[in-house]
């Protein structure tokens, strides 16, 4: 399949990689949020219901990260190579966090002993919290910029990645996923657990809004290049407005008991945030800070046009199918969670 010359395949793949990571945040975001909230209830039955609320879907949700990583490797190998080798230890930690999250879900309910379940409960919660946090830290570093040398290699250090702005984004991501996850649990439960989680939602919303406000201020004050694009193209401001309206709409919908619409608002807020982030970064993928000339862009870090074209064909064939059965699976497993013999 050949694509017309006016189609900027590099930009297309910038968008597609963004879509994959946004999909990951939307979907695995609530899984990680549920994990982060897991220890807030002590009742075994509550914990099991929460686990089973994400049980059939978390694995498919994690595939968005795997495919996003694969697409990054394929479309922008230089970014993949520089970032993954540069963020070596944080990414290894992220792997362990994701591993513990995954196996804890599988192992926890296989044995009835109290100590056994407690261990995997902690593994599940810690794995989810650490994953969310590290994903946020990585985003923070991409937004802030990292030192890149003239060969395109990472020139910083491990501790250099843990600067306050990156840590702030880590905490904000945890807050965002906790809010997203608590809304998801309310949709999937009823009875006393649902009442309990309703009290958490308000707290997670407050927690997130505080983090969001601090992050926004910090970005405007300390990361001027992120705001510069908006100043240059004022229409982008509308995306920021959508984002704020979506966030403001969440407590309103919760107040009226329209949980699904609150969940959609939370999702819309994430999409708007990622869109804003993408638009502010474009065409950069990794900003070099301090020496901006070494930045990795969608042009100097990309695979050949032929590969980008082949992959677009693969994506165009695959995407409708993937979307169709993802939607069907959420449809089949719709409704409140009921524990049965096959449950975790």
């Amino acid at each position, binding site marked *: 399949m050949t694509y017309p010359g006016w189609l900027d395949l590099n930009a297309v793949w910038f968008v597609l990689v963004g879509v994959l990571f946004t999909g990951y945040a939307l979907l695995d975001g609530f899984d990680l949020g549920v994990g982060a909230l897991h220890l807030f209830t002590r009742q075994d039955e509550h914990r099991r219901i929460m686990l089973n609320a994400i049980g059939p879907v978390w*694995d498919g949700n994690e595939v968005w990260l795997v495919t996003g990583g694969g697409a990054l490797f394929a479309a922008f190998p230089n970014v993949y190579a520089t970032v993954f080798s540069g963020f070596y230890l944080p*990414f290894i930690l992220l792997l362990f966090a994701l591993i513990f999250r995954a196996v804890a879900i599988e192992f926890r309910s296989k044995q009835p002993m109290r100590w056994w379940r407690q261990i995997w409960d902690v593994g599940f919660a810690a794995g989810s919290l650490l994953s969310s946090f590290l994903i946020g830290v990585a985003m923070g570093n991409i937004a802030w910029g990292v030192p890149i040398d003239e060969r395109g290699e990472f020139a910083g250090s491990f501790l250099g990645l843990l600067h306050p702005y990156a840590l702030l984004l880590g905490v904000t991501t945890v807050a965002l996923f906790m809010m997203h996850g608590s809304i998801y649990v309310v949709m999937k439960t009823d009875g006393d657990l649902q009442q309990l989680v309703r009290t958490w939602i308000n707290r997670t919303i407050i927690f997130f809004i505080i983090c969001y406000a601090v992050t926004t201020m910090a970005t405007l004050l300390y990361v001027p290049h992120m705001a510069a694009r908006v100043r240059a193209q004022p229409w982008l401001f509308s995306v920021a407005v959508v984002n704020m309206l979506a966030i403001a709409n969440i407590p309103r919908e919760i107040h009226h008991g329209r949980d699904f619409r609150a969940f959609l608002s939370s999702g819309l807020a994430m999409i708007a945030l990622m869109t804003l982030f993408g638009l502010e970064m474009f065409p950069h993928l990794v900003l070099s800070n301090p020496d901006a000339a070494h930045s990795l862009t969608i042009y100097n870090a990309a695979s050949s046009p032929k590969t980008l074209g082949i992959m677009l064909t*693969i994506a165009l064939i695959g995407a409708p199918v993937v979307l169709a059965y993802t939607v069907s699976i959420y449809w*089949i497993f719709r409704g409140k969670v009921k524990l049965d013999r096959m449950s975790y």
Partner: protein
Amino acid sequence: MDVLLLSRIQFAFTIAFHYIYPPLSIGLGVCLVIMEGLWLKTGNPLYHQLARFWTRIFALTFAMGVATGIVMEFEFGTNWATYSRFVGDVFGSALAAEGIFAFFLESGFLAILLFGWDKVGRRLHYFATWMVCLGAHFSAVWIVVANSWQQTPAGFRIEETPNGPRAVITDFWAMVFNPSSMDRLSHVLCGAWQAGAFLVISVSAFYLLRRRHEAFAKASMKVGLAVALVAAVLQLLTGHSSALGVMRNQPAKMAAFEGHYETGDMPVYAFGWVDEERQVVTGLRVPSPILRWMLGDQAHLQGLNEVAPADRPRVNTTFQLYHLMVGLGLMLLALALVGCVLCWRGRLFARRGLLWAMVFSVLGPQIANQAGWFAAEMGRQPWIVYGLLRTREGLSAVVKAEAVLTSLILFTLVYLLLLAVFLYILNDKITHGPDEADLTPGGKLAGHGRAEA
């Protein structure tokens, strides 16, 4: 220790650990399709019980495969960044295809397979079982294609970039159907079917020896034996075809497999030991008439002495691994054959000695798969991409030995813990055995089954 050695150890360790699980998922997937198919066809609830029990085992191996698989994708970037820059353009399409066609398929339908028994009709459930099985096979397709390209690169050109040279795709289909990909894919899949089938055989034999769940175990054994026999016979063909392919495409690798130093007719050993100093092999040679029949006019092979010493793989190690794989493969074939014949004649279930051998047979495909992969990958050395990029040139430029040592220690600790827990739960599930309640399907699945069966 240096970064190269540590990174190689870490990759070998994490991939070897990961590779315990996907073959089990692929092989069990095939068994599940057969078991559930038999249930749909006959309505016999025994087959429903079979499918339910093995689905639970499948879920466990699948979860381990997913948890350890994401590590592999990350490690290309974390430890082998220069290699990633070099192969990204070529590998990319295969990896993207794997994500879109395989991983989404598997993980999506897995939800129905595991949790959908009472939520969907039996036809849709069976469809989901098929899709999970297919997805598992697709993921093998793409990753083996990518690995085969490293062994026998095709459909590319080399391009200079500011970050160093890289391979750029010129012909997608030539890359996918590179000279070794189909041989190696079929070989890998047969090995995976055996891994799943012999797990089924092993557990069934264990129940029969203990005189527990006998009806279940007999039915299970038959499915396992059938898959094992088909896979083991096909494995003979794919193995032979792969070996001829290696002789054509990677002569230095085959020369190492057989300790062949001087150019000429290649000897083939049943087993042996290579003295690398004196360049002699002591061992049992396959008689030359058989060899001529096997290799035909391909017997003439370039010896290791025509390869620069720096470009040779380790000889004795790859020799041993390769022969271990072949030997185990033949033993598994014999076991499957004897098992099938005795089962056909109705005499298998009284042969306690053979049943004990079957209990331990689960290790056979696991060891053979690992040995085969180690031989294939060590035989490719010193190249990471055969003839194009050396392994030491593929390392990440910025990652220090201390960082790799830290991660290697962590991987070792965590993986040992995971292995222990996996075996503990697997053992627990096997001891617990099939669920009697599964003999009466509930929910949407009930109603169609014949009660008397």
